[in-house]
């Protein structure tokens, strides 16, 4: 008998209608889902006693047979024996149901066991997987490590290979050298052997010959048969060997050696001098190449610079002629070049500054000077003309006197007297004239001499200036202020008109008067000299000009340097003139 109270079903607590129940039951009983199983398990475990309400949903008193049928169906599908229904009483016999239940329980237990096993298996797998993952990571790391090590080892191997190669090459070269040395040794050995053999052969020959000679009775003496003496090739008589002869021989030998050395030395000296000349030519060429490049107005300045530099270079060249040390000469030429470059740059700067002002000033000056010159010439011509006229008049009067009629006697007497007087006077006048002429000549000679002297003094002055400039360049010092004050003092101290002029135009002078009559002087020295020397005599007119002329030269110097003390210095020097 089946009590509804005692029937326990593995069913879900879902009180659905039959089909739904069945499906839900079947679904649930078939699904191996863990959760459901668990759930179901729990539910079954949890609801053994309290499942009555739930269970009663599936099986009631009405549908027992259906339930039984369904259960049989299910059980059959599971492979268990069904429960037979004793329909007459309408009650189930407990034994098959219990058996069925027991089998189902067994099934369930088995299933649980399987589940358990699966779970353990799952756990194991999970742990295995973890383990494998760990090991995988580890192995990956290891792989990385090994790879790196591998590359490092490759690197090392490569380097070792290189080393091997170099060592092999070295070994090859050493082997080659060894071979070479061996070949040398072998060739030397063959040479030695050859020589030794030769010597041995000679030795044996000697021994044989010695034996032969010892045994040979007949000894052929060495002799010379000559029909008659032959004269010496140079025809001279033979001389005895004496100590004097020996000395003579020695002397001759030394003479030969000496002459050879002398010729060699001469040729070397010639070569040396030629090279020196070439060096000097090169220097000169350098100068000439540099100078023509400048434009016309600045010619005089450049010429002055050129002359300065020539002098400067002239000095070192003289020095080089005396010096024989190569290094000193080299140093000197280098220093010359440097100086020249400095001077050139300086001159260029000054050129650019002064060219504009210089042109204007220069023209005015030139005009003035020319005009004065012209005036002077005119005056002289006038004087000459007057003199000529005078002489002419005299001559005419004389003629008239001679040709005028009068008493023969008295006239003659008078004439005589007059003539005599005239003659005397004429003589006197001629004498005077000649004297004057001589005076004129002398004066002219003096003038020319003075001009020449002036020229010389100017040259000396130039040299001094060059030297001074050199020293200036070599020690450019900030003494400008001190000297400028000195200049102003000196300027004030001198008290003639050009000084005033100077004072009034010191700035102008400093900047301008760069190319002055000096230019003309450089171009036409003689006329300028004469002009200047002539002006030395008339003080009032000429002195100023002279001073200005001097000034110009000195001012140019001042332009060359910022130091103005030169002016005073130079003036002092030139005052005696």
């Amino acid at each position, binding site marked *: 008998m089946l009590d509804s109270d005692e029937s326990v079903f593995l069913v879900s607590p879902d009180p659905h209608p039959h089909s739904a129940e069945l499906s839900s039951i079947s679904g649930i009983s078939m699904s191996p889902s863990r959760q459901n199983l668990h759930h179901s398990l729990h539910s079954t475990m949890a609801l053994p006693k309290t499942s009555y309400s739930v269970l009663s949903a599936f099986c009631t008193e009405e549908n027992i047979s259906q339930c039984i049928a369904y259960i049989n169906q299910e059980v059959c599908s599971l492979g268990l024996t069904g429960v037979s229904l004793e329909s007459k009483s309408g009650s189930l016999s407990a034994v098959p149901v219990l058996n069925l239940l027991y089998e189902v329980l067994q099934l369930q237990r088995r299933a649980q066991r399987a589940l358990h096993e699966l779970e353990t298996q799952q756990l194991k797998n999970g742990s295995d997987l973890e383990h494998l993952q760990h090991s995988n990571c580890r192995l990956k790391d290891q792989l990385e490590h090994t790879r790196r090590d591998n590359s490092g080892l490759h690197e090392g191997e490569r380097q070792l290979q290189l080393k091997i190669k170099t060592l092999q090459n070295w070994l090859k070269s050493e082997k080659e050298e060894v071979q070479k*040395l061996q*070949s*040398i040794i*072998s*060739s*030397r050995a*063959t*040479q*030695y*052997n*050859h*020589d030794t053999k030769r010597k041995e052969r*000679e030795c044996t*020959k*000697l021994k044989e*010959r010695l034996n032969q*000679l010892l045994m*040979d009775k007949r*000894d*052929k*003496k*060495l*002799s*010379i*048969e*000559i*029909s*008659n*003496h*032959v*004269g*010496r*090739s*140079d025809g001279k008589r*033979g*001389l005895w*060997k004496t100590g004097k*002869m*020996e000395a003579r*021989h*020695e002397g*001759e*030998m*030394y003479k*030969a*050696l000496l002459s*050879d050395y002398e010729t*060699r030395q001469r040729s*070397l000296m010639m070569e040396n001098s030629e090279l020196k000349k070439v060096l000097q030519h090169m220097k000169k060429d350098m100068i000439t190449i540099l100078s023509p490049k400048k434009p016309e107005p600045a010619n005089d300045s450049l010429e002055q610079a050129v002359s300065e530099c020539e002098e400067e270079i002239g000095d070192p060249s003289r020095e080089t002629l005396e010096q024989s040390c190569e290094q000193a000469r080299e140093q000197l030429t280098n220093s010359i070049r440097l100086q020249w470059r400095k001077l050139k740059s300086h001159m260029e700067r000054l050129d650019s500054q002064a060219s504009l002002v210089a042109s204007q000033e220069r023209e005015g000056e030139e005009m003035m000077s020319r005009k004065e010159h012209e005036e002077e010439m005119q005056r002289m011509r006038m004087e000459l003309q007057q003199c000529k006229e005078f002489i002419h008049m005299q001559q005419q009067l004389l003629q008239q006197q001679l040709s005028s009629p009068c008493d023969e006697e008295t006239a003659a007497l008078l004439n005589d007297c007059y003539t005599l007087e005239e003659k005397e006077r004429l003589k006197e006048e001629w004498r005077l004239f000649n004297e004057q002429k001589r005076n004129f000549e002398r004066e002219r000679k003096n003038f020319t001499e003075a001009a020449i002297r002036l020229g010389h003094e100017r040259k000396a002055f130039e040299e001094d200036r060059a030297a001074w400039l050199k020293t200036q360049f070599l020690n450019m010092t900030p003494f400008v202020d001190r000297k400028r004050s000195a200049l102003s003092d000196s300027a004030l101290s001198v008290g003639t008109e050009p000084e005033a002029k100077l004072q009034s135009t010191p700035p102008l002078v400093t900047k301008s008067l760069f190319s002055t009559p000096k230019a003309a002087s450089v171009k036409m020295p003689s006329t300028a000299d004469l002009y200047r020397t002539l002006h030395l005599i008339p003080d009032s007119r000429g002195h100023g000009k002279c001073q200005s002329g001097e000034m110009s030269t000195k001012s140019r110097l001042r332009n060359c340097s910022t130091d103005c003390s030169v002016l005073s210095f130079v003036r002092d020097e030139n005052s005696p003139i």
Partner: protein
Amino acid sequence: MNFSEVFKQSNQLCKVSPDGKYLATCVQYRLVVRDFNSLQIAHLYTCLDPVMHMEWSSDSLFILCAMYKRGLVQVWSLEQPDWHCKIDEGSIGLVSSRWSPDGRHVLNTTEFNLRVTVWSLCTKAVSYIKYPKACQKGVDFTADGRYMALAERRECKDYISVFVCDDWHLLRHFESETQDLAGLEWSPNCCVLAVWDNCLEYKLLLYSLDGRLLSSYSAYEWSLGIKSVAWSPSSQFLAVGSYDEKVRILNHITWKKITEFEHPATIINTKAVVFKEVEKRPVVGSEDLSIHQLTVDNSLFSTQSKYEITQLPAQVPVIKPDPDRANPKIGISALAFSADNRFLATKNGSFQVLSLFWHCSGSSLVLLSKEHICLCYVEAEEEK
């Protein structure tokens, strides 16, 4: 070109007199002197033995004939054909014989180089010089004939003696710093003596006339050294040819090398002009106006062979010599400066040129092989 008839000669003894008037040839034991222009026999002398060596005296008045086997030297006079002179070295034997520069003394080197006997034809006097050295070039006279340098070897050391040729007075005797002196040569200006060592050591020493060592030069060590040496006619340069196939030129002021010339097997120098003889067996000639390296293999009477200019780089055939033999046939064996100091001719290797020398004008070079002779005309280029 005209050819004369062919005359007999033996031992290649055929020499023109220094004044150029006569030609002397030896045929066995006869000495035939011909007039040079007409080739008519001017004199005929008979010697006692086949002549091994024949030499004109410097003033062309006497001819020396040496017969080594019998140890005899006979001197003949051209002015007086009846005059005769016979020098007998006796049992001591004769190895070489030569004239002194003044043409009045005969220097005989005895067998085994025991001594050098100086016979005077003026005084019949005899002088002896002991221990001469047997080497490549042991005796040399200065160009002006005043001094003679002789290499000697005593007690395993080399010495050099300088004699005054006037009276054979010993001027200087000094030890030479060579291991084994091979040769010595005076400079043309007679003031410097170049002394070189055996091929086993590259050493060139320069002594002045009074025996002072001026300088020593050594290009390298251990390998075979100097093979030939030549002075330039102005005494400014000294050319040294060595077994390494290079010519080194030293200058007379510092005695240091100023340049060296190589003789490579392949000529690639663009300034070189290579003349190649075109013939059945083409052998290369070569090159540059300042160095010549020529070989000759042309017979005078065969078909004319031309010399063509070959393209650079030109290969010079090189025969590798047997390295196991002594005195191998490599290196510079002949050097000759032209008289005007402009050219240097060198012979390298085993070419068959036996001797080379320049014509005195410096315009042509004469090459002699065993059977042939060749003249090379050098075009003088216009110099600045």
